[in-house]
């Protein structure tokens, strides 16, 4: 009689052990969004889809660009596979609704971080660290003789509707007391089509985007960026406010990209660094960063070795930049503010 009784008594104990194990693995996290993504097995990422350097579709059908690489790094960290991402191309105007309604898990779409988008009473989004420090610029045809904003007085200027560009331009022109006509378009394609057909004397939006779009013009040399920088445009990935656990995970995925560059860990040497860390218990910081010891991944609800996985997916921040926007790309944008803090830039990861 006794053995079956003991067995029956042990069942709840075993079951509770199992539960305990689960809870440990999740770190006691409650993130509905991460649970949904894991159940679905794919990350749904909102991107622009038509902007060279940030997110665009190559002739072979794959998505490329810095915004795309942020999605890939996140998928690698959470799901273990950078290819498990579905990209949703979003307009300037439908991007926030798509994020708020849960249609996309992560908005990685050259979106400017502002108070009203962050605040609970505004768009109620949660911003990760900024991945590209930009500023709003103005592009004009080279032969137009327009040298600065004053030359644009009374002229039509094309801007994407509903963007911060529209507001910045209005503020700046009002400060300078210059009348002008804003021509607003819902899509970037329409904005640039109107500019290229000379309906507007200038087009104004983020400088990186102007440079990126110019690279796809029939004659890029016929257009020039004015030296004016009229705003700060920190382009930042965003998630919904309602899920702080998921927002933290994305935040530290981006920091890991910065930190990996700072530590000199690249796509090429990450295996060697991992082997070095495993072999040498004295390298405590490196061991924790790469998930050899400690529980950084578990604390965030990500894979234990999420850093190794995301570096394998696309390299550190510096590698992503060079490949998508820098000298390895057709844009050849200088890193400018987007250097690490120790090189005089603005990228700074808190300690892991």
């Amino acid at each position, binding site marked *: 009689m006794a053995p079956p009784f003991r067995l029956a008594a042990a069942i709840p104990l075993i079951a509770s052990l199992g539960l305990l194990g689960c809870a440990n693995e999740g770190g006691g996290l409650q993130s509905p969004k991460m649970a949904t993504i894991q159940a679905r097995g794919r990350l749904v990422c909102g991107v622009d889809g038509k902007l060279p350097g940030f997110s665009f579709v190559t002739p072979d059908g794959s998505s490329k660009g810095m915004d795309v690489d942020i999605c890939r790094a996140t998928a690698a960290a959470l799901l273990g596979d950078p290819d498990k991402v579905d990209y949703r191309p979003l307009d300037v*105007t439908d991007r926030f609704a798509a994020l708020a309604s849960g249609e996309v898990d992560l908005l990685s779409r050259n979106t400017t971080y502002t108070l009203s988008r962050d605040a609970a*009473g505004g768009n109620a989004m949660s911003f990760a660290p900024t991945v590209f420090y930009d500023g709003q610029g103005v592009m004009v045809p080279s032969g137009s003789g327009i040298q600065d904003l004053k030359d644009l007085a009374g002229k039509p200027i094309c801007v994407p509707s509903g963007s911060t560009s529209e507001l910045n331009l209005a503020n700046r022109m009002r400060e300078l007391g210059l009348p002008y006509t804003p021509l607003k378009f819902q899509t970037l394609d329409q904005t640039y089509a109107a500019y290229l057909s000379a309906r507007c004397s200038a087009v104004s939006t983020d400088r990186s985007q102007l440079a990126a779009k110019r690279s796809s013009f029939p004659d890029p040399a016929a257009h020039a960026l004015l030296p004016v920088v009229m705003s700060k445009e920190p382009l930042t990935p965003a998630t919904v406010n309602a899920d702080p656990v998921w927002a933290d995970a994305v935040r530290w995925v981006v920091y890991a990209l910065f930190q990996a560059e700072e530590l000199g860990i690249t796509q090429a040497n990450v295996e060697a660094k991992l082997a070095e860390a495993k072999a040498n218990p004295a390298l405590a910081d490196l061991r924790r960063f790469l998930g050899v010891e400690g529980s950084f991944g578990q604390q965030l609800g990500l894979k234990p070795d999420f850093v190794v996985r995301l570096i394998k997916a696309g390299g550190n921040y510096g590698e992503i930049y060079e490949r998508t926007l820098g000298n390895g790309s057709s844009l050849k944008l200088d890193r400018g503010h987007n250097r690490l803090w120790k090189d005089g830039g603005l990228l700074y990861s808190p300690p892991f």
Partner: protein
Amino acid sequence: MRSASPGPVIPWWRDRRLIPWLVQGALAVVLLVVVAFLVGNLVRNLTAAGLLLSWQWLGQPAGFDVAEPLLPFDAGMPYWRGLLTGLVNTLRVVLLGLVGATLLGTLAGSAAFSSNALLRALARGYVELIRNIPLLLQLLFWYFVVFLALPNGAQAIQLPGLVLAKSGLYLGRAALADGVWQLQSGLRITVEFAALLTGLVVFSGAFIAEVVRGGIAAVPAGQWEAARSLGLAPAQTMGRIVLPQALRVIVPGLNNQYISLAKSSSLAVACGYTDLYSVAETTLNQTGRAVEVVLILLGSYLVIDLLISAVMNGVNRLVQLQER
């Protein structure tokens, strides 16, 4: 005997006068509970999401500019004024569109009965070509292919009393200064407005042409013959005999087309014209008040369409046969 006695007292649950009231009352209570539940649910969820309706933002400065405002507007004015400016811009294109589409539609619809075969074929071709292509594509065509292809400056197309340039259509007198046209007297229309108006007029005109054609076809052939035998000219026959009778059939159909034109004007954003929808979109992006802005949009278009309906129903009563 029977009538004298008050009869047995009827229990209330079999009272023919009371039962309908009870049933109606119970139904009303159920309905109220359901509506209260739905509204309560909406408010609870909006509160939880931090989206409870608030209208204070309407009084804050808008901060954006509006191209070609009919109502004076600048970035320092509040959001409500911006939305009102957008509404006025919408009404401008809707009213002009209604007039233009009615004229074009009446001409094309009447042309279907012309004795000239070429005219009949043209009217038919116009209707079939236009009504089978989506309006959005047509607007993009009018804007990017037709109006943005206009030359600028000295190469602009100059007709007596009219200059067609990319910087605008100038009706009246305009002079070239520094390679830019300056209006001296008359009216300047932007190419955005011109593209939207053309698109709406041409598109709605095709549908109105069909309504008009149907109305004229509904007039018995005997009316034509009678008019001819009285010695009326073709124009008189059409104007005095056929069209007045055809209107009874045409007006209800026109109502639909007018409402549809008003709603289609919200596609203005495709060709860069700043209408109510465009202003609302910018407002939504800057305030984050999605529910409120969409409610304002819904309400505005509903009111515009109900007004059009009311006017058209009045017209309908006027043209119907007065029976004595």
